């Protein structure tokens, strides 16, 4: 009888070890390339234009078809692919959460904000000193990819009806080179005629050298053709824009003199007071210039008592005015004269990166928050551009590459950060 008591726990242990299905160790095809997939198609359906797609997809890599020629799966299935979060990092930002878990209490069904996201797949190694674990290993070479519009339910793709599984919105072939890092995004090309497409960017930052004294910012415009009538395009960024930058640091002297109740007081860093940072022309570019912004001495990040300063607390009243250095970008239409006076779109990079995705994205954008009346002077909030870490025991800012992607009236932020576990970065 004793031996049975030994067998039972052993069996239970064996069962307990298998918590989830892992991704395939290898996929057929060439040597690995690295792929990350986003969906940035805005929700643009209106009763007057309801023929467009609902931007909630199943992503299929090397799709497999059933006997009727309808997709039934693929070598990679990125299911429940919702709109990406406003802020993400170069590692899986939500890795503590289960696959398909909604991080938004308003979303009751399964959702992933990117592929691979939390999927258990082999990830990219550190390249050029960057942590790239949010990119999945995929075989290089030519591959067909599909984005299929699917319901926002918990039903996995393979169990959906044939009618739904054949709702292919994007069908294209991508060519991946071994060892390269790619970001693939489902984009809208024309909201008025409901045209969509895939945008594939071979990331350049793995081949460039960056100074440890700076953080870098690179901008891409992934907007489709402008639409004058679709609410999803209200307050869009122009096709050609001047990007000005003001780099603020907190002014304790003025603040103390005026009392903290009246707000917070900032001064611009010399050389970064509404300075022209770059001009961004056209859309869907796959390369950009990564522009340096200095990392301020660490004393700027601490107050007079030696306490680490605060991020701006969005929507939480005066008590949460920020005190950390922060960057404001101002976007103006480069084709109009008048420059800065022309009601720029202002984006304040001053929120806590750990908290920004807790806020509904539309609330952080005055256009989508307040309606068409806020067409001019719109303000948006984004995460701080500074990468703070206490990796060495003291919180300080580290070099990083901040990739900003503009999609109509929204700006998405992806921070590429050093691989801290790689000793060369210590």
């Amino acid at each position, binding site marked *: 009888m004793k031996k*049975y008591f030994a*067998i*039972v726990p052993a*069996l*239970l242990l064996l*069962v307990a070890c298998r918590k989830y299905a892992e991704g395939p160790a290898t996929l057929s095809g060439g040597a690995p390339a690295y792929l990350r997939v986003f969906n940035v198609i805005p*929700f643009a*359906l*209106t*009763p*007057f*234009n*309801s*023929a467009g*797609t*609902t931007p*909630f997809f199943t992503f299929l890599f090397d799709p497999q078809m059933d006997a009727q020629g309808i997709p039934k799966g693929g070598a990679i299935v990125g299911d429940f692919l919702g709109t990406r979060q406003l802020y993400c990092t170069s590692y899986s930002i939500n890795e503590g959460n289960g696959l398909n878990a909604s991080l938004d209490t*308003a*979303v*009751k*069904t399964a959702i992933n904000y990117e592929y691979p996201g939390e999927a258990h797949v082999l990830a990219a190694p550190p390249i050029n000193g960057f942590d790239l674990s949010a990119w999945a290993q995929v075989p290089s070479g030519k591959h067909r990819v599909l984005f299929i*519009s*699917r*319901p*926002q*339910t918990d*039903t996995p793709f393979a169990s959906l*009806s044939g*009618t*739904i599984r054949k*709702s292919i919105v994007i069908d294209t072939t991508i060519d991946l080179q071994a060892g390269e890092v790619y970001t693939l995004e489902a984009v809208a090309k024309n909201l008025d005629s409901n045209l969509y497409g895939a945008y594939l960017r071979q990331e350049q930052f793995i081949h460039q050298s960056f100074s440890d004294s700076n953080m870098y910012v690179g901008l891409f415009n992934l907007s489709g053709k402008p639409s*004058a*009538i679709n*609410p999803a395009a*209200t307050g869009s960024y122009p096709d050609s824009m001047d990007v000005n930058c003001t780099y603020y640091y907190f002014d304790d002297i003025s603040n103390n003199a005026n009392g903290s109740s009246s707000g917070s007081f900032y001064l611009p860093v010399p050389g970064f007071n509404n300075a022209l940072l770059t001009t961004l022309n056209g859309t869907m570019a796959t390369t950009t210039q990564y522009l340096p912004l200095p990392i301020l001495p660490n004393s700027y990040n601490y107050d007079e008592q030696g306490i680490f300063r605060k991020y701006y607390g969005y929507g939480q009243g005066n008590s949460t005015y920020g005190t950390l250095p922060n960057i404001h970008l101002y976007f103006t239409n480069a084709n109009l004269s008048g420059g800065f006076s022309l009601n720029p779109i202002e984006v304040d990079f001053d929120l806590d990166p750990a908290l920004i995705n807790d806020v*509904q994205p*539309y609330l952080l954008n005055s256009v989508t928050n307040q*309606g*068409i009346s806020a067409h001019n002077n719109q303000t948006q909030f984004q995460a701080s551009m500074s990468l703070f870490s206490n990796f060495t025991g003291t919180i300080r800012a580290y070099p990083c590459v901040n990739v900003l992607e503009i999609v109509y009236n929204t700006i998405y932020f992806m921070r590429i950060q050093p691989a801290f576990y790689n000793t060369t970065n210590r």
Partner: protein
Amino acid sequence: MILIGLAAASCTKTEVISPSLGTIHQTLVSNLESNYAFSLFDYALKKTGLNQVIAGQTAYTLLVPDNDAFGRDSIFSTADLDKLDTGYLRRWIGYHIVPGNITVASVSQTVNNPYLSVTGQTLYFSRPIPGPAQRQTAGIDEILHINGDTVNTPDISVSNGTIQVLNRPLRLPVASVQAYLAANAQYSVFVTALKNFGLWDQLSGPGPVTVFAPDNNSFAYYHITPDSVARMDTNTYYVNLFSVYVSTPSRIFITDFPDIGVGNFQSYYTINNVYSWSLYSNNGTGGLVDPGNFYIPGIGSPEPTTWTDENAITLNGVVQGIDGLLWVPGQQIK
């Protein structure tokens, strides 16, 4: 050993099937015959011989208006059905039969998914799209709208098909938006205006076109007569005065508004790129619009403009009757 057995058994979960109005042992025909609430539809099927179509093993989906639904169209008895021409009745009832097993979950989660009835005419199935502006959150996975009609009881499964119980009988599509407007006298002033401003001919084209048609009372309120509309000089007035009611390409059912989700004071729609509409909830308190509780704020109207003749489907679009004007002539003088 017993423990191992129990452990093994506990891994197999038996799927529990909830009882529903239909059972897998019933057929479409036997289910209709055994439900008194479906007696009028059953009668109409048998009278037209369409019961033979659904009697075999081939799967069909029946869109069944129950007796209450027929009552909403003033059909209360088989005698009322007998008053209808049999040929018309066959086309009408046939429009409620769709090949295949169409459950709510099998329909794409968007609006106006086309399905063909056995008569060869198109039906438009819609499901609510989840999102921040979606107010139909309770039981959202069971909500189905067909041609703007609501399915009250979804997914009754039987051995050879599925039954979706409708709130009202479906309206049989007429030839065109133009034909519908011409055939309904309450739109005669509007028709005169459309003709005068060169907007009439497109309404018999391929479409799809949606017309928000003000009835004659809307014009009478402003003392606009058919004669005065006919005499309106198009050199004096912008065509926008009447093109605002014509949306193309679009096929809009009223349920599209709640199904897509419309934010109050935030959503603006343009018809023919000439005019933006906003749709408000009746309570006007802000926030999001309640489903089924829309009105169009008629400019200059004494009361909010409301729907009066809903979801009149045609082969090239839809007519939505409204009881107010969006613009009065004085607002569109060149």
